[in-house]
């Protein structure tokens, strides 16, 4: 079943939470809704579920408008942040509930519950009542219940939020496969960009009730539509440096600490403009010697970050630049050093609006039909 949202708006009193949201999720695909808290993600899920009604716009499931259709008749599975478990039933009975409702036989129910519980690492607490479960376990029980009935449409609201790093990683590997095996059409809400990239066939970045960008994960990471989105994807955070694009006989360039960063000629339309240059830490490289593009910095600190090592550097004017490299590779000592910026991976944003300035040659933009 596909899901199509057209021009959805919703206000609570004066507060416009969603403003003209249109999204399309093809059958069997997962769309990740990504954005900061308060962006309107959860409200959107509740509209689709039918728990609240839109002020404006249309929701179609498999091409049929569901306006007026009761939540229980929409064939949607949900795991919401505060989606209460049945308090009088243990975890097993909670997960089994959709299967019992479908009148499946006992052995099918038993194996269905066991498989999901094992996958979500809650098989040891199946006999516990909700009040005896930790928050993370409650969340996973709700997730298992949502998955158990194999609904054609699944709405998952940050289901791994309270889960520790190790388990979160395992889930990140296993859940997308399960969802695609079930051929479910999924909307998955998260604030974790790694989860967004791992789960999403497409990612919709939503902020202040507006969809700011839709695209495949790679597109969002490589060509974020604005500085806010660039900042939300990547760890450590992307570096931003204020620059003015210039041009001479040798081409388009920007100066950082009076050192030249050569940019693609296709940026010539932005020459003279005040810009923000965005460069990811993995594209800041240490070089051993001074040369015309080597920016002098002071290395302030070195910190390990998962499978990477990160150096915090300061330019002569005290601007922070983070550089990262794979663990186990050689890096600089604290103190004076030189870095170069991989210009091919630089992003140029309009300083005033924050919007990405695309090089002229680029063709298709982020929007997907």
């Amino acid at each position, binding site marked *: 079943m596909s899901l199509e949202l057209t021009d959805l708006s919703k206000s609570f009193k004066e507060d416009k939470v969603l403003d003209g949201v249109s999204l399309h999720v093809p059958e069997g695909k997962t769309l990740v809704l990504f954005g900061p808290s308060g962006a309107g993600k959860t409200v959107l899920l509740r509209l689709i579920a039918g728990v609240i009604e839109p002020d404006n716009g249309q929701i179609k499931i498999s091409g049929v408008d569901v306006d007026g259709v009761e939540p229980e008749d929409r064939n949607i599975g949900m795991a919401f942040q505060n989606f209460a478990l049945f308090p009088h039933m243990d975890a097993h009975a909670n997960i089994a509930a959709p299967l019992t409702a479908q009148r499946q036989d006992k052995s099918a129910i038993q194996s269905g519950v066991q498989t999901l519980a094992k996958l979500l690492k809650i098989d040891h607490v199946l006999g516990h009542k909700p009040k005896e479960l930790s928050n993370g376990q409650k969340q996973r029980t709700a997730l298992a219940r949502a998955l158990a009935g194999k609904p054609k449409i699944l709405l998952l609201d940050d289901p791994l939020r309270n889960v520790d790093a190790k388990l979160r990683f395992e889930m990140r*590997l296993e859940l997308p496969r399960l969802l695609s095996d079930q051929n479910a059409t999924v909307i998955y809400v998260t604030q974790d960009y790694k989860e967004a990239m*791992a789960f999403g066939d497409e990612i919709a970045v939503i902020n202040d009730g507006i969809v700011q960008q839709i695209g495949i994960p790679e597109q969002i990471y490589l060509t974020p539509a604005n500085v806010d989105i660039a900042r939300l994807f990547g760890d*450590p955070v992307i570096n931003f440096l204020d620059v003015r694009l210039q041009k001479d006989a040798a081409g388009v360039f920007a100066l950082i600490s009076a050192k030249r960063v050569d940019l693609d000629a296709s940026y010539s339309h932005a020459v003279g403009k005040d810009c923000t240059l965005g460069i990811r830490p993995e594209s800041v490289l240490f070089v051993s010697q001074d040369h015309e593009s080597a920016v002098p910095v002071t290395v302030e600190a070195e*910190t390990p970050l998962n*499978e990477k090592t990160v150096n915090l550097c300061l330019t002569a004017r005290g601007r922070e630049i983070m550089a990262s490299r794979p663990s186990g590779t050689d890096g600089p000592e604290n103190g004076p050093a030189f870095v170069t910026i991989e210009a091919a991976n630089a992003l140029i944003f309009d300083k005033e609006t924050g919007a990405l300035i695309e090089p002229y040659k680029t063709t298709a933009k982020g929007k997907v039909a």
Partner: protein
Amino acid sequence: MSDVMLDLDAVDKFYGRIDEGVHAVRRVSMKVMRGEIIALLGSSGCGKTSTLRMVAGFEAVSRGKISIGGREIHTLPPVQRNVAMAFEGYSLYPTVTVRDNIAFALKSSAHSAADVAAKVEEIAAMLEISAILDKYPSSISGGQQQRASLARALIRDADLYLLDEPMGQLEPQLRTLLRGRIKAYIKERGLTAILVTHDQTEANALADRIAVMEDGELQQFASPEDIKKSPANLFTGTFVGEPPMNVFPARATISDTTVSFQLRGDVELSYAADAFSSALRARLIQMGEVVLGVRPYAVQRRETGSPATVVANQWLGDQSHIAATFAGGSLVLVEHHRTQLVEDQKIAVHLEPSDIHIFYPETGMAISHGARLVG
């Protein structure tokens, strides 16, 4: 040892009666040096917060001693311990502005008004709360309150700074930004700080040494690099590291020329004997059954090697996380570039002796790291 700032000596915490109640902290001993940043890391219920609360004086010590700067303090009330604290629920004064909340921490000491004002501006800028300095605590968000509380603790003059999940309420991007700045702030001033966190990324980024706790016990107390390179046991090895360390049960067979490990699923890893120290080989001969651990970034894909089958390949922008079935279990690889591997694809993997950790199967204690016997 004159430069020990904090000394925990065989500290126990029981909730309820001693030896009968819940044993939350079990004979924890550690020495924190002046100017060090320490992270207490573990999952919920591991005893890390109880430990911090005993240092702060919010919990009584059941057994053992705590000294700060050589002075035994575990029987003193919190105000006499000269520690600065940012605790969850250790709230701001609601009737004064954020600026005054932060400044108040300095007023009683010998600073001029101009000096205090400048210091408040500086720390507010660092923590990105300059814009809310003149607001009242009730009108700012939870994340802003947390940063105000952190500012109030860090601005003080104290022997020891105790920070309980200081960035727990903040969004991931802000947390990343502030980590580096907070570390630089603490280091520039030579402060001694203890941080409680369940977030290993934060612990790795901020701390000089990490105290890994589980079940009330100190599992390992070492630098992030040492914990990564030389995990004391299987718990530390698999808890710290994202993605987690790969582990495989194996049977070691040692001959004069080779060291080989039989894994499940008919996988055999075979190496020249001299790749392993003679002391380790002698130990392995006695052992037979062991557990092998290999970090995801150390798993190498090669033309020839042990067979594995790709289950998933996730590209995260700057690295690929590849999951595969291997030796009757699962294996995770990290590569720092985009790979085109797809589900069901056969690959060959190689594990270098220098990247292999070996553990005792019963106790989980480490036998060797990088083909060298521990200790």
